[in-house]
């Protein structure tokens, strides 16, 4: 949250000022070259510390008809404005010891004049000066927000210069250059702001005026200037500017600007007529000017040059980082921290469309500037800032919880929320089922009984992802929450149905079960564990089957239901027939690529995806440690599948068949219990347990696994579930 605040500040400020900053940094870099190049014309042939003002004045008066003024630059050049004996008025560099001319003061290069104007005012006079000053201020803030952002990232101000983990070039050097050039950049920006404030008279420099009419108190001595102690005691390094007396009138004085004060000095007696200390603001403005322009220090000018150039890099890399982040945001929703989010969306579903809807919803809400957290119902916990809880859940089997929602009801009762939360539950399901949206009802009821919760909206049931019903709910939600949402959230992808050719259909076995082999469509990438949606003729809705992929064939196991339209349609197919359908990717039920041990648990036709996984399949490395548990009615029922596991048998260590209708009546979970040690070892070795089959079996299996893990290693199965080690695909 804090991170995103600083990032947001940093980004917004940088965006607003970027265009101006580009102009300012390019011109700034050019101007930084001026002191660097100027200084190479060295006229400093003597050390001005060794030359007294008396010497220089005497020499100048001898050398020229008239001397008007004298200036000592920051680089210790001495410039005099003189009228020569030929009557020419000249500005020249002089040797302060002899008064001799060393060279003519060149006009400032027109490029620098032009660039200075652009840098100071963008050729827009006062408006431009205001903008430039304002952008300087923004640059200050950009730098400061960047500092905070970096401190946040690095874990504190003391760790600012710690090693950076960033690998991306732009990001890495944005940080590295940023932390080294932070100080010069802040100096540039702050002095720029200060100079602007002086320009606009917000910081007044009230210099007191000399009283020129003041008369000397001392007797006029007509002695030579070199006898006057005041001029003897001053060396040139203490002087900035000196104006010679306008005339020989004794009321015309020397006007001398020293480093810390301005004085008027009597031209004959050397009496100090008037003395004015520089006010603090004036000294500050001199410092600002020198720091901002690099006047007087070549090293600092070089640093200014580097900093100006680096600003261009910061702008470029900043934009690149921003675009990259934005592109990523488009692909993956960047979610806020659970404790930073106002709105929490929890999903109960095995991926697919409900998750897609939840993501689309989260994105919309997040676009409205709300912080959103998206998670599964099992991840339910306390939320520090939540004001709304939105639950989107499917229902499995006999009104059961989807796998990733199994612990919700239990957790809801235990966990206390720090705030009062409004909730809304949306159930996804199909009226075709007896227990339509049953679990959503259960969740809604459970929340109703919690004191910390009050309903934002009533339970909404959505049949077959009906777009109308969804729009209706979105509308109601917008009204109730005040968050504007776009309708037409993409909930369902449109699918390209295609034809699959039947290769073989096995005869029905004693369980009315058969195996169907289909030819894989060219270019179609199918993986065991994916889902084949089959559309029977004259039916609107496809039926889903878990499939295996073996030797370029799709394998599915179908049980014929008396009333099942699709299964009876499939049971009548013969080789060469074509069926309509599409393959739905099911990445949550793919075998892991790391070769860690796998335990397959299934019952009935749920074995189908495993028939492919067990075998080496394409380039995918099958695990060398595989264990299969299958539950069916009779031993004979397994005969149907036996031939398919032959190939992978080398790596299949256990093939445990449990039969419920045989004499020794056992269920899958019973067999699992016997292999307690194996199961806990597999899980602790980062292995995976994959469960496919009926919901009832799944629940029994998970219960057993919980007991196993509690007994074997006193660990909560939820840990492994969150770690993605328990994969389910049940129906």
């Amino acid at each position, binding site marked *: 949250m804090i991170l995103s605040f600083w990032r947001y500040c940093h980004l917004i400020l940088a965006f607003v000022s970027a265009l101006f900053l580009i102009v300012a940094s390019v011109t700034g870099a050019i101007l930084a070259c001026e002191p660097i190049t100027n200084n190479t014309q060295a006229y400093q042939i003597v050390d001005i510390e060794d030359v007294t003002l008396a010497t220089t004045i005497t020499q100048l008066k001898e050398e020229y008809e*008239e001397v*008007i003024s004298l200036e000592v630059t920051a680089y210790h050049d001495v410039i005099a404005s003189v*009228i020569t004996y030929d*009557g020419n008025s000249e500005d020249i560099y002089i040797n302060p010891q002899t008064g001799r001319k060393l060279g003519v003061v060149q006009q400032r290069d027109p490029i620098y*004049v032009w660039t200075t104007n652009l840098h100071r005012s963008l*050729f827009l006079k*006062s408006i431009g000066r205001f903008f430039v000053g304002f952008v300087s201020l923004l640059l200050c803030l950009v730098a400061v927000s960047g500092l905070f952002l970096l401190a946040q990232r690095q874990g504190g101000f003391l760790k600012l210069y710690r090693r950076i983990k960033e690998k991306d070039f732009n990001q890495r050097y944005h940080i590295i250059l940023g932390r080294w050039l932070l100080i010069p950049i802040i100096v540039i920006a702050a002095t720029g702001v200060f100079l602007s404030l002086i320009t606009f008279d917000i910081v*007044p420099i009230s210099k007191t005026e000399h009283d020129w009419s003041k008369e000397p108190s001392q007797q006029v001595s007509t002695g030579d200037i070199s006898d006057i102690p005041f001029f003897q005691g001053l060396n040139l390094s203490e002087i900035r500017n000196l*104006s010679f007396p306008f*005339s020989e009138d004794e009321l015309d004085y020397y006007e001398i600007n020293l480093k810390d004060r301005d004085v008027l000095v009597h031209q004959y007696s050397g009496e100090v007529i008037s003395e004015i200390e520089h006010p603090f603001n004036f000294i500050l403005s001199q410092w600002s000017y020198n720091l901002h322009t690099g006047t007087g220090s070549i090293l600092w000018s070089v640093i200014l040059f580097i900093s100006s150039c680096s600003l261009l890099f910061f702008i470029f890399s900043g934009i690149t980082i921003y675009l990259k982040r934005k592109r990523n945001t488009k692909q993956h929703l960047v979610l806020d921290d659970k404790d930073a989010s106002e709105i929490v969306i929890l999903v109960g579903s095995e991926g697919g469309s409900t998750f897609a809807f939840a993501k689309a919803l989260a994105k919309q809400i997040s676009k409205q500037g709300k912080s959103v957290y998206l998670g599964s119902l099992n991840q339910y916990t306390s939320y520090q800032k939540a004001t709304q809880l939105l639950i989107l859940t499917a229902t499995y089997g006999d009104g059961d919880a989807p796998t990733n929602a199994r612990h919700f009801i239990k957790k809801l009762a235990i966990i206390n929320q720090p705030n009062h939360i409004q909730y809304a539950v949306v159930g996804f399901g199909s009226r075709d089922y007896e227990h339509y949206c049953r679990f959503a009802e259960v969740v809604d009821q459970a929340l109703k009984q919690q004191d910390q919760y009050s309903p934002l909206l009533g339970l909404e049931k959505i049949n077959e992802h009906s777009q109308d019903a969804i729009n209706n709910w979105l509308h109601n939600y917008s009204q109730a929450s005040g968050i504007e949402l776009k309708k037409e959230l993409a909930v369902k992808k449109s699918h390209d149905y295609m034809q699959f050719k039947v290769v073989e259909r096995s005869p029905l076995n004693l369980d009315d079960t058969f195996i169907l082999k289909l030819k894989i469509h060219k270019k179609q990438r199918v993986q065991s564990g994916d889902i084949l949606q089959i559309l029977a003729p004259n039916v609107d809705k496809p039926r889903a089957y878990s499939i295996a992929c073996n030797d370029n064939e799709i394998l599915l196991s179908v049980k014929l239901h008396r009333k099942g339209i699709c299964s009876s349609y499939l049971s009548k197919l013969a080789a060469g027939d074509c069926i309509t359908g599409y393959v739905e990717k099911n990445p949550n039920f793919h075998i892991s690529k790391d070769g860690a041990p796998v335990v397959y648990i299934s019952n009935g036709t749920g074995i189908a995806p495993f028939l492919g996984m067990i075998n080496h399949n394409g380039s995918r490395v099958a695990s060398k440690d595989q264990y299969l548990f299958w539950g069916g009615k009779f031993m004979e029922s397994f005969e149907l599948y036996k031939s398919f596991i032959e190939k992978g048998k080398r790596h299949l260590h256990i093939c445990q068949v449990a039969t419920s209708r045989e004499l020794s009546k056992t269920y899958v979970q019973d067999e699992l219990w016997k292999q307690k040690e194996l199961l806990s070892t597999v899980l602790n070795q980062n292995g995976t347990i994959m469960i496919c089959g009926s919901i009832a079996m799944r629940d029994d299996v998970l219960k057993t696994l919980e007991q196993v893990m509690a007994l074997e290693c006193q660990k909560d199965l939820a840990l492994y579930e969150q770690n993605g080690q328990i994969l389910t695909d049940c129906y």
Partner: protein
Amino acid sequence: MKRFFKILPAVVLVSFLALSFSTPVDKINYKCLIQLKNYTGEGAYVVISLMNPEGDYEETLYVQGKDAEWYSEISEWWKFYGKRRPDIDAISGATISGGERSINVIQIPEDKIDKGYKIRFETAVEDQEYYAKDLEFDLTQANLKGKKEGTGFIRYVRLIRQ
């Protein structure tokens, strides 16, 4: 040949006139001290111009202020200078701020003195007033010494012959 002598006086006259025009007019160096009033804000632009007896600009004598983007703010003078914008680098210097004074050398054509010409001081400060006639006086020998009070940003001007 006869014909040549007929036009000889005309040739002589034309040559004489041409020569007299190309003869450089003597210019006299004057030291000019400008003392500004103690106002706050940016440095003042000061333009010193020679005005002919008809009251039109004749010549720019000095420009205090090098930032050309502000020249158009000195609107009266700009009408004269802005048309052709001759190079004035040699007769321009840096601005000075309120309360400060500057001493510059200006060159005044000797033949314009006591001939009905005037010297005008125009002043302007960024985002503040513009004084078209901060100070204007007849170009006479008498006026070219001593002190003249300004009406705008200028407190006074002193001129002294070099």
